[in-house]
């Protein structure tokens, strides 16, 4: 807005109040975002499904052959059965838990890695540490994602988490760049200068004063990363580089390639819709979160 109405008040930024007011207004904004709330609710429902799987409340027979080959939709098999007679509904539910496992592990570790490296290089911008981090980011970004994953899968031979490692080691650069940029901005602000003048150590400044002020970036990056991880899992599982044991939507979809040319779509449709529902809801949630946390965005 050009009117300068947002500049009411005395405009002196004190970090503590700045931080709380950012989160307060973000919460207020988010609470009014209908699409975001719907997204969050749907994600919560999916999470509930995943929790049920982890505790063994449902989807316990996902690996058993419980019916005939390609049984149609029925009260017993809600989504029918697959090529060898396993229940597609149970497999779909079980895969939800896998999706959350992959998404959460990758998102959390990416944010930790990207946040730490980004903050360090931003805080030491211009030094050799910064140069090395920037160089690493450039190198990682230069290798196409799927090739990087294939390469890491080879290097790690049959390690079951090769896919996770691969995603983390490629996804972190985006978070890293964002955090680095923000920290370079923060570094020049008064409260950081003040802390430095008071003789607070560099590590303490980064951890206690700078990183907390990048939390909004980390949160948004985490949601985006979660979505990316779930989508990448599908492709990697299809390529044979994904989930090693257990079941996932990606494995269901690659299984369905044996079925759909013969006219059996249940597996493909079930996995696609379940995955689309979660990713779409998460995208809406992530969007609302970005809107709420970005002070520049006016509704």
């Amino acid at each position: 807005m050009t009117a300068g109405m947002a500049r009411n008040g005395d405009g002196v930024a004190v970090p503590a109040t700045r931080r709380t007011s950012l989160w307060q207004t973000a919460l207020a904004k988010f609470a009014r975002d209908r699409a975001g709330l719907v997204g969050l609710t749907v994600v919560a429902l999916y999470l509930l499904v995943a929790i049920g799987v982890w505790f063994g409340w449902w989807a316990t027979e996902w690996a058993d052959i419980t019916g005939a080959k390609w049984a149609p939709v029925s009260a017993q098999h809600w989504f029918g059965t697959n090529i060898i007679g396993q229940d597609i509904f149970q497999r779909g539910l079980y895969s939800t838990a896998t999706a959350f496992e992959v998404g959460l592990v990758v998102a959390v570790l990416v944010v930790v890695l990207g946040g730490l490296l980004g903050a360090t290089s931003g805080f030491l911008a211009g030094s050799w540490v910064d140069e090395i981090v920037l160089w690493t980011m450039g190198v990682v970004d230069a290798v196409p994602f799927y090739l990087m994953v294939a390469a890491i899968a080879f290097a790690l031979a049959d390690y079951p988490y090769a896919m996770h490692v691969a995603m983390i080691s490629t996804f972190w650069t985006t978070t890293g760049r964002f955090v680095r940029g923000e920290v370079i901005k923060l570094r020049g602000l008064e409260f950081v200068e003040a802390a430095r003048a008071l003789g607070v150590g560099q590590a303490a400044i980064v951890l206690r004063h700078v990183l907390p002020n990048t939390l909004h970036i980390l949160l948004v990056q985490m949601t985006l990363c979660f979505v990316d991880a779930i989508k990448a899992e599908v492709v990697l599982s299809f390529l044979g580089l994904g989930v090693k044991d257990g079941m996932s939507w990606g494995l269901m979809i690659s299984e369905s390639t044996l079925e759909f040319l013969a006219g059996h779509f249940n597996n493909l449709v079930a996995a696609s819709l379940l995955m689309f529902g979660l990713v779409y809801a998460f995208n809406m949630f992530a969007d609302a979160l970005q809107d709420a946390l970005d002070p520049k965005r006016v509704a």
Partner: protein
Amino acid sequence: MAGVADEPLLSVRDLAIEFDTLDGPVRAVDGVSFDLRCGETVGLVGESGCGKTVTGLSLLRLVPEPPGRYAGGSIRFGGRELLALPEAELRALRGRDVAMVFQEPMTALNPVFTIGSQLTEVLRRHRGLGRREARVQALALLERVHIPEAARRLDEYPHQLSGGQRQRVMIAMALSCGPRLLVADEPTTALDVTTQAEVLAEIRRLQGELGMAMILVTHDLGVVAETCARAIVMYCGVIVETNATAALFAQPRHPYTLGLLQSVPRVRETRLAELPVIPGRVPDLRSLPPGCRFADRCPRVSERCRAEEPALTPIAGGGQVACHHPQP
């Protein structure tokens, strides 16, 4: 000119402009009325957020819509109602009849085109000049606003010029089609002090030479005193006082105007530490008090001020003030 002397060049009546915010619509300008005759200079003064910039932008109908909205009133310019004018006619008017100079010389010019290209574009559009002719004119304009080495500057990009020079280019551009009204929004605020004085003198000189009317939007009363014949003081979206500049400075009637005048540092007379400050804060436009908007900060406040909003009424000596208890 004699025939239209009765009708003012610009006539703003009960102008109201709203902005949509998360907490519902907010009135940034709430019932502003004023007139401007040909060749007259008026200063629009107030703190940031008082609605002066929005008022200035509305004179070219440039308030961004959405989130902004013209909620009522009228703006008549040269006998035409601007708020009812179709977009194509507005475009023909902008830059030709009404021109604007903006606050930020650093960002107001397009960084990827040369100065010459941006100047000639306006000349060719509004005055129908050919390419070569427009370039000759552009050069003359740059020389007119005293840009050194004008011929070379034509082929340079904005980032190669200093802030003061860029603002001179803006002024040259604004004057290129001989507008009848110039709206200058804080034209010197972003410049350093010596440049400020030079640019201001330039504006004053050109205004006199061309005989155009001018509205100077500023928070700086000193600038108004040097440049404008009349001043309009705004507070929280309304006009609180208007008068000839000399009268306003000699005898401010609204307590807010008095406060503004007292907080202008006079280097030789007062030390900065003793500078009086208006106590309190500007109220939030989203939750205005029912009565006078200045009541909470006013030393002369009474019960009536909190209940009833004062209207702008004529006072002895030619001005108008919106106050139940004006300064004697």
